[in-house]
């Protein structure tokens, strides 16, 4: 050891205020549920939503800055993603009231509390600037989700989902740590910004580290690919989405993916910044991720057409959506990261809304099969129409938000390919994206067809309950407003790119 001079890094808890608050609130929700007389079935849920709203308010007033050395960095990118995490948790809880009312009697507080804890983990993750805090945030995100996936202990599918999620998740987590260890070894630091510089310099002098870097790349991609459900690490997703409670599936599809995205962006776009592009082969992660993105788009869109369970279909569709997002991720220009942010934002509204409707329908009818939606437009026109709007946004139909999301992603890739001659492979990826986007319309439209154009009317008459209706309204509003007027969000998302060092 060197000198005994211990310098304390700056501890500043102010920047962590939303996380701390939400963490304490989660504990409060746990405690409330244990101690209260359980007269109201929805109190815990409303409490949780309240907590989220207050956390959001605190977030709005928190300044940018660095606390705890480089472990915690509050910057525009972090703020953007925290809003997404809070929003997705809010909408997930909001759509869960119906389902939890009957199925969970004794452990309601834990249900909501765990969701809040998972959100804390995500928020922590998005503020990390360092491998360690990134890993801890990631784990704090996933572990509650393991529990939540298997929350319906009596349901065979739910426990199966839980165990599958757990095993594959733990496995990938181990891969992730191993990969991180190599990165640490190569650069001598866990700080991402420092790592960026160190690895680049080491690579200049020792070309042989290339092999180890490849190993690190692939292992980390495997670990994060699990979170993102990127092929070939995607196979848990359909089963887990199908088995777990619908609001949890919703939360997984948006929040967990966004967490994976920000983690990926921090490690690769920030940490391994120099290693994108074919000239850095074999170390470039660009082509690697590009190939995986193509695989995601192709696989997700192809297998989704034969699904009969709506949650499974939405799982495959979200695999495909991640493919599109990754296109934005591999284009290393300002519009790229901004488009990633915009996409996840638009995706949040559409997907949470869609799952909310699935939850409503499931609560009323107990079924998640697509065929059971037949003729819904006759008996519940509002439900059918809103569902159709969400599906069309997912498919990328203008003037809904999903269209602009895809547009910006493709535009950023094309812009990069035009500006930089070595990035010609981006054209291929965009081509695959366009082609598969066309295919995807089939399975989205299939549901619309089943709802609107079936011969008989549905035997079910589904009404909205209050919180779910609010969530659906938020979803519709988001999808339509940001489809007509995407500029503000795009502008906000562009600020993210500043954090990664892209100048507009």
């Amino acid at each position, binding site marked *: 050891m060197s000198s005994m001079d211990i310098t304390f890094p700056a501890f500043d808890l102010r920047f962590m205020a939303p996380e701390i608050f939400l963490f304490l609130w989660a504990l409060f929700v746990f405690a409330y549920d244990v101690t209260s007389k359980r007269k109201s079935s929805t109190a815990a849920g409303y409490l949780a939503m309240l907590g989220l709203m207050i956390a959001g308010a605190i977030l709005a007033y928190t300044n940018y800055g660095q606390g705890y050395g480089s472990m915690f960095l509050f910057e525009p990118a972090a703020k953007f993603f925290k809003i997404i995490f809070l929003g997705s948790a809010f909408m997930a809880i909001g759509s869960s009231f119906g389902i939890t009312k009957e199925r969970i009697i004794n452990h309601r507080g834990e249900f909501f509390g765990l969701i809040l804890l998972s959100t804390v983990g995500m928020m922590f993750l998005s503020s990390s600037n360092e491998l360690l805090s990134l890993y801890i945030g990631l784990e704090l995100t996933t572990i509650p989700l393991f529990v939540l996936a298997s929350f319906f202990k009596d349901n065979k599918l739910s426990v199966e989902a839980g165990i599958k999620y757990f095993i594959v998740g733990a496995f990938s987590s181990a891969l992730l740590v191993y990969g991180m260890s190599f990165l*640490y070894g190569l650069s001598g630091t866990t700080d991402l910004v420092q790592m960026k510089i160190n690895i680049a310099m080491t690579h200049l002098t020792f070309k042989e580290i290339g092999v180890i870097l490849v190993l690190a790349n692939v292992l980390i991609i495997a670990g994060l690919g699990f979170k993102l459900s990127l092929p070939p690490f995607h196979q848990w997703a359909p089963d887990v989405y199908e088995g777990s409670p619908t609001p949890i599936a919703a939360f997984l599809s948006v929040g967990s993916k966004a967490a994976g995205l920000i983690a990926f962006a921090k490690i690769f776009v920030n940490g391994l910044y120099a290693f994108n592009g074919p000239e850095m082969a074999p170390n470039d992660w660009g082509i690697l991720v590009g190939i995986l993105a193509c695989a995601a788009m192709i696989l997700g869109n192809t297998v989704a057409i034969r699904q009969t369970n709506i949650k499974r279909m939405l799982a495959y569709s979200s695999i495909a959506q991640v493919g599109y997002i990754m296109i934005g991720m591999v284009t290393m220009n300002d519009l790229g990261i901004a488009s990633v942010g915009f996409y996840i934002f638009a995706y949040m509204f559409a997907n949470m809304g869609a799952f909310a409707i699935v939850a409503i329908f499931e609560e009323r009818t107990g079924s998640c099969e697509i065929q059971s939606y037949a003729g819904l437009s006759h008996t519940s026109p509002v439900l059918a129409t809103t569902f159709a709007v969400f599906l069309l946004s997912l498919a990328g139909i203008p003037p809904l938000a999903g269209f602009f999301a895809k547009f910006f992603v493709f535009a950023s890739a094309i812009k990069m390919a035009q500006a930089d001659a070595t990035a010609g492979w981006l054209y291929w990826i965009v081509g695959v994206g366009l082609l598969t986007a066309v295919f995807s319309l089939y399975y989205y439209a299939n549901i619309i067809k089943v709802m609107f154009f079936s011969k008989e009317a549905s035997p079910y008459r589904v009404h909205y309950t209050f919180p779910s209706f609010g969530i659906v309204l938020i979803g519709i509003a988001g999808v339509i407003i940001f489809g007509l007027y995407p500029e503000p969000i795009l502008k906000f998302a562009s600020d993210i790119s500043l954090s990664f060092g892209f100048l507009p």
Partner: protein
Amino acid sequence: MIPISAYLIVAAVLFGIGTVGVLISRNMIVVFMCVELMLNAANLALIAFSRALNIMDGHVFVFLALAVAAAEAAVGLAIVLAVYRNRETVNIDRFDMMKW
């Protein structure tokens, strides 16, 4: 001094054993044990690097990673328990109700 490569090779071997174990075992608990083995192999690698570079970051990382692994173990085993109560088996191959 033991060269760092020795540690790394041990770590790699452990990791490999763990991986193979995950792929082969049918008992959920054994699978999880192998996952823990993989995690510890990664921790070993971290410590080896940290030693070689003479900085403490790796050690700190391992501390926290161990804690996280413990938490994961707790949760995981709880899930295994719930699964067992529901289905009376811990044979992982029996859980294929959701497929294709």
